[in-house]
């Protein structure tokens, strides 16, 4: 069975979804999806362990060898992503049962779990596959389930946000399809590894430039990078809090994985960064994104909007790390990817707990929450601190590597800007702390008591993970460095 691990990773949640539909009672569906997600997490752990020991794993689908059939190619980069996605989904699923009671009508709970499993399987599929067109198909599955899940939100604006996300997402996906088509036309193959071998010969032609441009723009639309981020705040703010927690921690990460995979593995480092002024473009867009999103976050009244904008800012950091295009830069991006998933998972789950108790995440009814829901507020504070990058938290580790990579590259002003960006983070995190701890509780809110246990366990596992990986960074740093070495040394 060990040989079949890569495909089992995707197939178990994928097959679990239709099975889940057959179960009538939502509680049974919840347990079933929890088991499926737990199994996926287990497998990703074993895969990571296997990859770290014996290098890249190749799994041909249907027994046909690479360019003819579809193959799965798992190297350190995929294994890290697989681990993050399955871990986050399992933890978020813990709190799903109680949270959706308050936010989704009763008859749609089983459907919620089916769509949740489908989007999980699709993301695992995107990350694991080694075939360009297969990426498009699974990208489409994850986006479709995302649109449906976001539209389940209570507020009528969730529908409008989901519609805008659909339009932007489909345009992005079609751009990627055009890009893949152009690449296929010039090289005749769809397999990523095969592409990376055959592309250099045709690299100078104009078609390959356009293919590269379209793929990158398509991915950036999915990534919600600065100029193309308009759909993200509404989509994350009005979706049910479990959906926001899950997508905030994983959806953008998958898009960044795609960006890294296409620029480094498929198009090759030399092509991506020398011909086009990509490096300069991405650094400026990243930094502008950080500042614009952080200032926007400061003026938000809804805390979910606030953290959604801060997610865009953190993505800006990853883009800056990515644009340094050295091994250290890539390690910094991968680390920040890993850490940001932990941070945002904890924060949005804690917001889910607040939403469960109070019914809305407006900043005004956060008043006096420090006393009424001390444990949840403590989780939000620690999450906020790790967002700022205080030592002994996970944020500090990624900030340390990012600034180190930037300085090694000689960009001193960029280093100062990155640190100034985290100052803005202090402002918007402290706005919440001040409202929660210093303002007296509102009149009718004495009855609010602490969030139920089913929320506290996942929130606090993520918070402890936030601190643990801030101290014992062996796992995250080792895998990140191995992944960036493998991308820079010899392409997989």
């Amino acid at each position: 069975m060990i040989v079949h691990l890569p495909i089992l990773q995707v197939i178990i949640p994928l097959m679990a979804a239709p099975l889940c539909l057959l179960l009538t009672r939502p509680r049974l569906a919840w347990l079933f999806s929890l088991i499926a997600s737990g199994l996926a997490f287990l497998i990703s752990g074993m895969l990571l362990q296997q990859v770290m020991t014996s290098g890249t794993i190749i799994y041909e689908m249907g027994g046909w060898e690479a360019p003819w059939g579809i193959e799965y190619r798992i190297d350190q980069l995929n294994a890290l992503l697989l681990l993050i996605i399955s871990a986050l989904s399992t933890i978020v699923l813990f709190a799903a049962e109680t949270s959706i009671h308050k936010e989704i009508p009763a008859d749609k709970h089983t459907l919620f779990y089916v769509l949740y499993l489908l989007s999980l399987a699709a993301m695992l599929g995107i990350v694991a596959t080694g075939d360009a067109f297969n990426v498009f198909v699974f990208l489409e599955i994850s986006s479709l389930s995302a649109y449906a899940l976001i539209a389940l939100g209570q507020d009528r604006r969730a529908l409008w946000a989901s519609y805008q996300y659909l339009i932007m997402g489909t345009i992005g996906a079609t751009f990627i399809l055009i890009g893949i088509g152009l690449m296929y036309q010039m090289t005749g193959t769809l397999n990523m590894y095969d592409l990376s071998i055959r592309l250099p010969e045709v690299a100078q032609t104009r078609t390959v430039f356009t293919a590269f441009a379209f793929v990158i723009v398509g991915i950036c639309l999915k990534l919600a990078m600065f100029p193309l981020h308009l759909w993200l705040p509404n989509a994350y703010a009005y979706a049910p809090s479990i959906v926001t927690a899950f997508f905030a921690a994983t959806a953008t990460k998958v898009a960044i994985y795609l960006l890294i995979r296409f620029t480094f593995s498929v198009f090759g480092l030399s092509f991506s960064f020398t011909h086009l002024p990509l490096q300069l473009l991405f650094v400026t867009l990243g930094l502008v994104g950080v500042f614009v999103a952080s200032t926007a976050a400061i003026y938000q009244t809804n805390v979910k909007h606030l953290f959604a904008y801060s997610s865009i800012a953190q993505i800006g950091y990853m883009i800056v790390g990515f644009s340094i295009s050295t091994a250290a830069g890539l390690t910094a991006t991968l680390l920040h990817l890993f850490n940001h998933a932990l941070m945002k998972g904890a924060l949005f789950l804690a917001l889910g707990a607040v939403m469960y108790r109070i019914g809305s995440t407006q900043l005004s009814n956060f008043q006096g929450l420090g006393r009424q829901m001390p444990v949840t507020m403590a989780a939000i504070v620690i999450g906020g601190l790790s967002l700022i990058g205080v030592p002994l938290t996970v944020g500090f580790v990624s900030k340390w590597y990012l600034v180190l990579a930037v300085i090694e590259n000689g960009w001193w002003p960029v280093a100062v800007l990155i640190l100034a960006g985290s100052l803005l983070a202090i402002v918007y995190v402290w706005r919440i702390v001040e409202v929660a701890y210093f303002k007296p509780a509102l009149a009718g809110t004495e009855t609010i008591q602490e969030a139920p246990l089913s929320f506290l366990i996942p929130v606090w596992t993520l918070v402890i993970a936030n601190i643990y990986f801030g101290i014992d960074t062996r796992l995250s740093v080792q895998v990140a460095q191995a992944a960036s070495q493998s991308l820079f040394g010899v392409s997989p």
Partner: protein
Amino acid sequence: MFIGLYNYWVVIVLMMVGFYIVIAHGNLIKKIVGLSIFQTSVFIFYISMAKVDGGSAPILADEINQYSNPLPQVLILTAIVVGIATTALALALAVRIKEAYGSIEEDEIQKQDNLD
């Protein structure tokens, strides 16, 4: 040079028409129509790649030796299904938005959003 690539340019014009409709029009249903035109034109682009002069449909028959390339056709089969899935979901959303907001014009919805 002109004759050989003429086909692709027509497809690109079609793509841009679809793209324009999606961006310019406020009506949600119009946007979905634009989106499906945009996707169908991408399908035509793929298929026009696969055509070989004098080749016949990729069904093995003894007397034919020249076949068109089957691979893009397989990709397009998947893409059509993806296209219809997105259109179905988009229409479902449009119906729900009509019920929730009472209109499917982008600016009216935006106005109602800014109110509350």
